[in-house]
Every structure is written in C-alpha cells, then in structure tokens.
C-alpha cells in the first residue's frame, strides 16, 4: 500500500488523492474482499454482538452495558421516531435504529485506530442505504394513500393556478424521485470522503515533514501531527452528526409520506 507523503513516493510532497481510496484486495484478487467490504461484515458482527449482550440479561436496574444499549435505542425511538413521525411511529423504529447504528459504526471506523477507514467513503454503500430509504418511504406513502392519490399529492400542489403546474410539476417529481435519494447518499459520502482526505493530508504531511532533510521541517512536523489529532476529534463530531442527519432525513421522508397533502 502506498503511504501518502512518504519520501519514497518521489521528489516533493504527493498530496492524497482518490487513489488512496482504492485499497487492494485482502484475500487473493477478488473484488469482493476489499477492506470496505470486510469492514461492513465486521460492523454487522460488532453491532449484533453489542446489542445481543446488552439486551440478554435485561433487568429493571440496568447494567452499564444494558444502559448504553438502551440509551442509543431510546434516543432513536424518542428523538427520531416519536418526535418526527408521530402516531404509528413504532413500525419504523426498527429501520431507523438499524440505519442509525449501522451508519454510526461504519463512520466511526474512520477514526478507530488500526481500522481507520470510513466505509461510507465508498459511494456505493450510501447509495444502497438511500435506495432502502427511497423504497420504504414511497412504499409507505402508496400503502397509506393509494398509488394515484399519493402521486397526485406529489405532483400537483393544491391552491396553484393551472398554468403554474407546467413549471412546478417537473420540479416536484425530480425532487421526490431523484434529488432526495441522491442528496441523501451524496451528503454522507462527501462528508466521509472529505474527512478521510483531511486526515490523510495532515498525517501524511507530518510524515513527509518528519522525513525531510531540513531540520526546520522536522521541527515543524509536530504541528501537522497535532492538527491531525485535532481534526480527528472534529471528524468524530462530523461522523456522529452525519449518522444522525441521514436517520433524521429518512424519518422526515417517511413522515412526509404518511401525512396527506392538504
């Protein structure tokens, strides 16, 4: 694997680029065994183990583990389910909870030592999550209101002069069927991608400066490493926030499909 900013990579500093995201296969030459894929399976195992252990010995007076598991669950259930979806929110809590925890753990892989690769910085994973949300909120809307009424509610806003529909209907349809899933996935992807690049710049830059022949550069390299550490904490914040936002927006889309347009 090529190390960003290392002296061996040629004269001058080589800034990190998209090639740093193309990781080689772990087992053999299969495309299905790269680091992100393995990390996704690993995250599923970690999440399952954590919540099975947390809920196995459920007691009235919770243990520390049970408390941790329950506070994550009740956060999603209260703040994202009950507050936003309202009546009948319990049907959607399993999806929202799975989405939140899955994205959170996969994002946090970006700063956990030895792993240090956010799975969601490969755009195909957020796409799949957005497709799940897309299918679910349209299915909920169609089931609740009926196909024709649901599509009519999307395409034709009431209380508008007739000629304005020529302008507005394409925008509404594009928003619901194209822009919503695309922005949902791209927001998560772009944040994780940019965050990983940012860390690569500072750590790789520090590494390059430390190996430079000038003493001045060697002395300055701790600042680059130090800023890398600061950015790691910043990334922690961004990763939690992005997991929250994708779940919040999914809940809002479901809530929007449940409410009949008036």
């Amino acid at each position: 694997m090529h190390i960003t900013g290392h002296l061996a990579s040629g004269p001058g500093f080589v800034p990190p680029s998209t090639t740093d995201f193309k990781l080689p296969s772990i087992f053999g030459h299969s495309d299905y065994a790269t680091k992100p894929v393995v990390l996704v399976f690993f995250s599923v195992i970690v999440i399952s183990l954590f919540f099975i252990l947390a809920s196995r010995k459920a007691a009235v007076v919770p243990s520390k583990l049970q408390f941790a598991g329950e506070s994550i669950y009740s956060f999603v259930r209260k703040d994202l389910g009950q507050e936003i979806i309202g009546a009948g929110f319990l049907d959607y809590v399993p999806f929202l909870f799975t989405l939140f925890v899955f994205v959170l753990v996969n994002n946090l892989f970006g700063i956990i030592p030895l792993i240090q690769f956010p799975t969601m910085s490969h755009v195909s994973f957020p796409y799949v999550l957005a497709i799940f949300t897309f299918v679910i909120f349209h299915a909920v809307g169609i089931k609740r209101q009926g196909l024709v009424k649901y599509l009519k509610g999307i395409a034709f806003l009431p209380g508008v002069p007739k000629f304005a529909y020529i302008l507005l209907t394409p925008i509404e349809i594009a928003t619901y069927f194209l822009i919503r899933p695309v922005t949902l996935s791209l927001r998560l992807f772009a944040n994780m991608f940019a965050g990983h690049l940012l860390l690569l710049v500072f750590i790789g830059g520090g590494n390059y400066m430390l190996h430079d022949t000038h003493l001045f550069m060697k002395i300055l390299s701790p600042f680059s490493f130090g800023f890398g550490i600061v950015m790691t904490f910043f990334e922690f914040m961004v990763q939690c926030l992005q997991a929250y936002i994708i779940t919040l927006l999914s809940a809002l889309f479901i809530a929007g499909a449940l409410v009949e347009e008036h």
Partner: protein
Amino acid sequence: MASNNEEGALWSIMGYLISGLLIWGGIGFALDHWLHTHHYFFLGGLLLGAGASIYLVWLRFGRE
C-alpha cells in the same frame, strides 16, 4: 412535509432549488444543443428554474 422541523425543511428547500435548476437548466441546455444557440436557452432555463423553485418554496413553507 413536517415544516415544524427546521433542519428537515432547510434540506428540502435545498433539494427543491437543486432540482429546479437541474430540470429547467437541463431543458434549456438541451434546447441550446438542439438549436445550436450559445447558452441563451440555458441561462433562461436557469432563471426560470430558480424562479419556479423559489415559488415552490414559498408555496410549501411561506404561506402559513
């Protein structure tokens, strides 16, 4: 759309603006390509799309 949630409302406003510009700007771009004009339809389409999506935002979130 639950307009009592400000964060969701802001993201969906951005969604409307993007799709307005994309759709009408795209139609203008296609017309330019087809009629061999230089960006006139594209710029007009962008203005139309921006206007239409701001009107849509007003309809959704402005009139309470």
